[in-house]
């Protein structure tokens, strides 16, 4: 039963960490919005999906790469990858701002109850995915290979592949940048102030609408970066790809403690590794079962997730 885990432990671990970092970035999209609005941004999964298309369009249509063209090298490689990353973040960030504008802002201004925004968010998420389905004729879309998947070396029998290594380091870098932004910048402080006490923040002169838009934007940027890494590793997207990713990232956010940025970090990594190990030991058919049993167990003992909700503890 454990022979696969023992035999391939380090390959699995590297794959799990890379997947985990993608989850970390997507779950930031959920956790930031929740932290500020106390609402789940159900459209985040589709924001991710739009980001994957942004990534592919950059390499395929702007730089003209095809399935058969040779991977990029040297400065061109850096140029294409960075353009893809920026494009994906821009597409996802703008989509997130759009979602906030259409599905949240007006309802919030009118003071409707939370269920109304829940439905409008689900509505916009269906619109986004069905629109992409119509645009792509329901077909899966493959990404041309820009970054050659060179095996850099071997560590304890596991291949270190360029794309996974890039994903792990770059995603970690983006995570820390965002965390610093929320912790240190003036806007970040405003975001945290609103999440602690909306009314008090307003009285202190914080522009609520601007804070909420920025929160969606930052969550969208993180999700867009995740979409870029996802395409670099898996080279594939489809209109319905957001659902599974959204589910996993939301689970990661809850596991770590939704509303808590550090919770998203540990939750994402934990989930990535758990999925990979569980699939290897029990068979992939048991992956979802294991993940949700672990989630229930965690919530049983720590109802606010592994790291709790930072905001709620300060409230009490």
């Amino acid at each position, binding site marked *: 039963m454990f022979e*696969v885990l023992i035999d391939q432990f380090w390959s699995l671990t590297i794959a799990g960490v890379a997947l985990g970092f993608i989850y970390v970035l997507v779950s930031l999209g959920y956790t930031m919005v929740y932290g500020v609005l106390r609402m789940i941004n159900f459209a985040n999964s589709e924001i991710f999906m739009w980001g994957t298309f942004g990534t592919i369009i950059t390499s395929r249509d702007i730089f003209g790469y095809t399935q*058969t063209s040779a991977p990029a090298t040297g400065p061109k490689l850096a140029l294409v990858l960075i353009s893809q990353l920026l494009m994906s973040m821009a597409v996802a960030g703008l989509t997130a701002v759009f979602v906030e504008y259409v599905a949240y802002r007006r309802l919030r201004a009118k003071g409707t109850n939370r269920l109304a925004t829940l439905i409008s968010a*689900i509505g916009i998420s269906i619109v986004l995915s069905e629109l992409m389905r119509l645009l792509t004729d329901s077909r899966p879309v493959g990404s041309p290979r820009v970054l050659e998947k060179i095996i850099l070396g071997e560590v304890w029998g596991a291949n270190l592949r360029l794309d996974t290594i890039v994903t792990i380091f770059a995603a970690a870098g983006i995570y820390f940048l965002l965390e610093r932004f929320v912790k240190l910048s003036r806007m970040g402080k405003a975001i945290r102030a609103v999440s602690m006490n909306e009314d008090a923040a307003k009285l202190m002169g914080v522009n609520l609408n601007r804070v909420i838009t920025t929160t969606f934007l930052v969550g969208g940027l993180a999700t867009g970066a995740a979409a870029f890494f996802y395409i670099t590793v*898996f080279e594939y997207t489809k209109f*319905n*790809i957001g659902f599974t990713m959204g589910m996993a990232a939301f689970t990661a956010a809850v596991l770590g403690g939704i509303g808590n940025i550090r919770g998203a970090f540990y939750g994402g990594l934990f989930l990535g590794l758990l999925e*990979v190990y569980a699939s290897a030991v029990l068979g992939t*058919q048991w992956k979802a079962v294991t993940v949700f049993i672990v989630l229930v167990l965690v919530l049983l003992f720590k109802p606010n997730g592994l790291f709790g909700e930072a905001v709620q503890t300060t409230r009490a």
Partner: protein
Amino acid sequence: MNKKIQRSLAVVSAAALVFGVAAAQTSANAAPKTVYIAYQGPLSGGEASTGTDEQNAVKYAIKLFNAKNKATYNVKLVSVDDQGDPAVAGTVAPGIGKNKAILGLVGAAYSGATIASLPFYKAGGLVMISPSATRVSLTDSASPDFGGPVFHRVVGKDDLQGPALAKYATAGISNAKVFIFDDQSSYAVPLAGYVTGGLKKVAGATVVGTDSVPNTTTDFSPTIAKIKTSGATVVIYTGYYSQAAVFIKQLRDSGSTAIFAGGDGVFNQEFPKLAGASAEGSRVTGVGGLAGVSTKLEADYKKSMGVSSGVYSVESLDAANILLQGIAKGNTTRAKMLAWVKAYNGKSITGNTIKFSANGDISYGLFAGFTTKNGVLVNTGIIK
């Protein structure tokens, strides 16, 4: 929540369709006679690509027919969206079953949705010809799923394909060590079972490992770890082409050179396109897509429909043609249409003779082997 909303939308749109048809019928003029056939399959939701491809083939057949029989008939298509989901099928099928204006139905695309729809079509005497429902029990008169007398299919059953795939995947490999995995769909799991059964008859072949991976997976690293540990020389996947393309890329990137083989779900020219060089040498069973039948036909299809043909296009065209030929012969009631299909003896566009057994199975069911060469799946002949 999401799915529920989709479901209720499906009900509403199906109702609109049914009433729409009834309204259109009363206003139809005497000549040319307007008649209706239906297509049922997943047209929205996660499985929409299969249904859209099949329905396009049906539309193509109708287009050709209407152009040829302008003076006598005007055939219209009723789209029935079951999302490939038995629960949705159960809500859309009653209206279609009762609407006698619909003479015949191409579908349902999926076996599960077919079983859920059958009671209503049996009650309405509506003949069905499925291009892709391969579950064995559908034509087994001893099974509660038995679809007679209305159910027919123009696709080979799993118990024929499984052994063919086992043989083709291991051809030329002595003492093949085989790893089998499926995508957990109702198409793939039984097929994987028949492949395993088929491997027992291949000398020297052993199954060294299995897995079952949800069809939404994009990270196959655990499965690949298992394949490496098992030392497999042949990997057989029962599932669909898009997942197969994602998987084969990751398998090759991991350094494995094991032979990759898949069933008719993988049989699609999009597979080598999506997977690129990684797909070279992959072995796939299928009855041959449109392009496999004739490149001229595929070109005309693409010109007419605006998109390339997809999975089950040949079967969908054949199924639609059987109904359309029945209409041309004046079988414009359900009872006559059912009798026509039961007694049908004609040619598939592949050249095979189509006849149905008493239980609704197609008379042939030979699978051809295809291998990816230079980015295209090339027919290597019937697997014997």
